[in-house]
């Protein structure tokens, strides 16, 4: 659209490219809006004078724009206009320079970006360290038709962000990055059909099914190592409606803009394979009202009422902050969950949501370190669950309003949870027994789990009954650690054993006295704590030994496998 044409050969050595020419406008957008606002405010009456008689103007109140009158009176118009032109010229010039100096490229090893005129900045995200590729669009950017591409890497604050690209080009760039990452890190991503224990399974949903839909849709399932072919971005990265369908027919320019504005960015192949999960608005609103955050706010409000009745009426003043918290909570949760859709693409899992500002996050397979399903007490009658994940790129403090904050399902029924977990972990892949085991772990009575010890009720209270830990599929490379816990908020944590950093058996003081122990698996920094408290000491030791053994075996299998496949001709030379 704007940058140099995409070079087809060699496949993954794309040249330096520029960002969209309008991007400085948007990055300095606020400043320009302020300037325009001042000019318009001062010219308001001038403009009106042209259309209305002067008595109407006088009726509107005194004229505040002394500035322009002064300028006219002192005959400075020429100089002011010249000065204005000069300022605009300088701004445009600097923006143009900044745009000229902001470039990015995708190579066989990394995504790189360069920017800055005086202070040059060169950022590099190695492909095998990429944790997710996100498309972010603020409302203003959506209107202008621009999109920010953000490449998240492992490690805090390690990201390359490309501000901004045209929306369709951004989608293409994302595909190119994901394809390059898949090619570079192929052994690291755990394709389900390559199971080193020989536990080969048919993977009906994992491979992108040949999509018989439109021509443009098939472009989304290319073979790895072949980047998206150059061509018209409109055909390669079509806009998709909320049903996951590509908007049909050819469109005029304006129509195309509107479609981009309303592009839900769902992978078109997901609809065909049935790997598309959405959240209806009514359920989202109900879930926010019944959620535990809202419950806490209601409890505080009741406490204030009680205090004002039996204490001093001044306590009612406390309603103001509580009300503010409630409103901001509602808005942020609503905005984050609105139009939520999770789809399975050829190269990863795509999660998107947003009301005004939208964000879609694409997580390549094998980047998920832990999954947690939660059910606050208010959701239990409806059987709703929320699912969140830990990946290496997320920082805990990442709390912007349009960020999805590790949530991969704001609210969903148990079927949705099962599908989401399967999609994220390649768990089951449609196999009925695994799906049943997962559902049993979520809502069942915990058979097959090592439960809490005899005297654990002192520590776990109502959560004693649900508490349990289990190593699932210990024999295969897909082994996972599952922990059930909670009463007020029921949870199920699933950690692929492949991703465990270390395992721990702890005996804090109270546990020691009661003859109990805690078991914990350490993952990268994230919101999920893979820990089980109150296990009987003897049992905990048995589980610890098994867990440590499984971790070593699964991870050494993986490293052998990496060694085997990542031979030079595939790993490096093939991409150079």
């Amino acid at each position: 659209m704007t940058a140099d044409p995409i070079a087809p050969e060699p496949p993954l050595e794309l040249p330096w490219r520029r960002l969209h020419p309008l991007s400085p406008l948007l990055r300095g957008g606020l400043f320009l809006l302020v300037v325009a606002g001042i000019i318009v405010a001062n010219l308001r009456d001038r403009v009106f004078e042209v259309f209305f008689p002067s008595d109407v103007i006088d009726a509107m109140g005194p004229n505040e724009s002394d500035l322009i009158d002064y300028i006219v009176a002192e005959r400075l118009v020429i100089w002011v206009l010249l000065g204005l032109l000069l300022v605009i010229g300088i701004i445009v010039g600097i923006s143009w320079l900044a745009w000229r100096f902001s470039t990015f490229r995708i190579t066989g090893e990394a995504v790189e970006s360069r920017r800055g005129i005086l202070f040059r900045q060169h950022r590099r995200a190695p492909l095998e360290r990429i944790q997710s590729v996100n498309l972010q669009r603020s409302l203003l950017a959506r209107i202008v038709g621009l999109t920010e591409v953000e490449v998240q890497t492992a490690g805090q604050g390690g990201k390359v962000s490309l501000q901004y690209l045209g929306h369709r080009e951004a989608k293409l760039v994302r595909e190119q990055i994901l394809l390059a990452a898949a090619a570079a890190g192929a052994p690291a991503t755990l394709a389900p059909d390559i199971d080193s224990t020989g536990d080969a399974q048919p993977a009906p949903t994992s491979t992108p099914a040949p999509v018989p839909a439109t021509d443009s849709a098939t472009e989304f399932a290319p073979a790895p190592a072949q980047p998206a072919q150059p061509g018209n971005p409109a055909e390669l990265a079509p806009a998709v409606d909320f049903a996951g369908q590509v908007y049909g027919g050819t469109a005029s320019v304006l129509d195309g803009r509107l479609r981009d504005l309303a592009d839900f960015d769902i992978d078109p192949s997901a609809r065909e394979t049935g790997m598309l999960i959405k959240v209806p608005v009514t359920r989202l609103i109900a879930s926010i009202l019944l959620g535990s955050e809202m419950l806490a706010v209601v409890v505080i409000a009741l406490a204030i009422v009680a205090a004002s009745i039996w204490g001093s009426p001044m306590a009612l003043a406390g309603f103001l902050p509580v009300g503010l918290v409630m409103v901001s909570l509602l808005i942020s949760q609503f905005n984050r969950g609105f139009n939520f859709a999770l789809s399975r693409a050829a190269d990863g899992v795509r999660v998107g949501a947003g009301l005004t500002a939208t964000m879609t996050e694409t997580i390549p397979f094998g980047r998920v370190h832990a999954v947690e399903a939660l059910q606050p007490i208010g959701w239990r009658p409806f059987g709703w669950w929320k699912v969140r994940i830990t990946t290496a790129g997320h920082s805990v403090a990442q709390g912007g309003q349009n960020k999805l904050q590790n949530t991969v399902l704001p609210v969903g029924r148990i079927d949705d949870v099962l599908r989401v977990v399967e999609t994220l972990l390649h768990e089951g892949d449609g196999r009925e027994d695994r799906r049943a085991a997962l559902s049993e772990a979520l809502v069942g009575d915990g058979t097959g789990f090592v439960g809490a010890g005899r005297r654990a009720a002192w520590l776990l209270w109502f959560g004693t009954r649900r508490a349990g830990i289990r190593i699932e599929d210990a024999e295969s490379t897909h082994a996972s650690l599952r922990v059930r816990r909670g009463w007020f908020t029921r949870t199920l944590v699933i950690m692929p054993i492949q991703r465990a950093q270390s395992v721990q058996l702890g005996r804090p003081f109270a546990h020691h006295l009661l003859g109990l122990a805690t078991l914990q698996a350490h993952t990268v920094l994230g919101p999920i704590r893979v820990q089980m408290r109150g296990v009987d000491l003897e049992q905990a030791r048995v589980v610890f030994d098994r867990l440590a053994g499984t971790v070593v075996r699964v991870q050494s299998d993986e490293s052998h496998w990496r060694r085997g496949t990542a031979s030079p001709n595939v790993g490096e030379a093939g991409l150079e």
Partner: protein
Amino acid sequence: MTDTEWPTPTETWQRVSPKFAWADLALNLLLVLVVGVVYLLVTTLSDERLPLVVHLVFAGVVLVMLINAVFAFRRVKAIGYVLREDDLLFRRGIMFERVIAVPYGRLQLVDVTRGPLLRALGLATLKFVTASVATGVNLPGLPAAEAEALRDRLVELAETRRSGL
């Protein structure tokens, strides 16, 4: 007791140098001293008589810290590690005992540091860093030569068993 046998029935725990207990003790006593100085400052500088609670709190804090300091020898004895075939086993703590198993492939880096106190005793601290901050495998008070040998051994083991993130 099974406490001494599990989880390594065949191998014995490697311990850190007993000399480290003296460093631990000295540091703890230094802290007691600091609290004592603060107490003296508070009592002498305040114009009015302080309530009894303040004296009691200070006395309690000093007592707990003294007991904690005396446990230095027991605490240092509780630190141990074993290099198993595929993972490092580490344990620490009496009141909050922890046993941690880290596969060698998870090693991101090994850190050997020597503070002034430890250097005087000819000791060093070895830190085993993984991608998880919670792992926290920290071997304080190894003899300097042993710490460096252990570091090289760990790096070598990690090289042969490298896995992803």
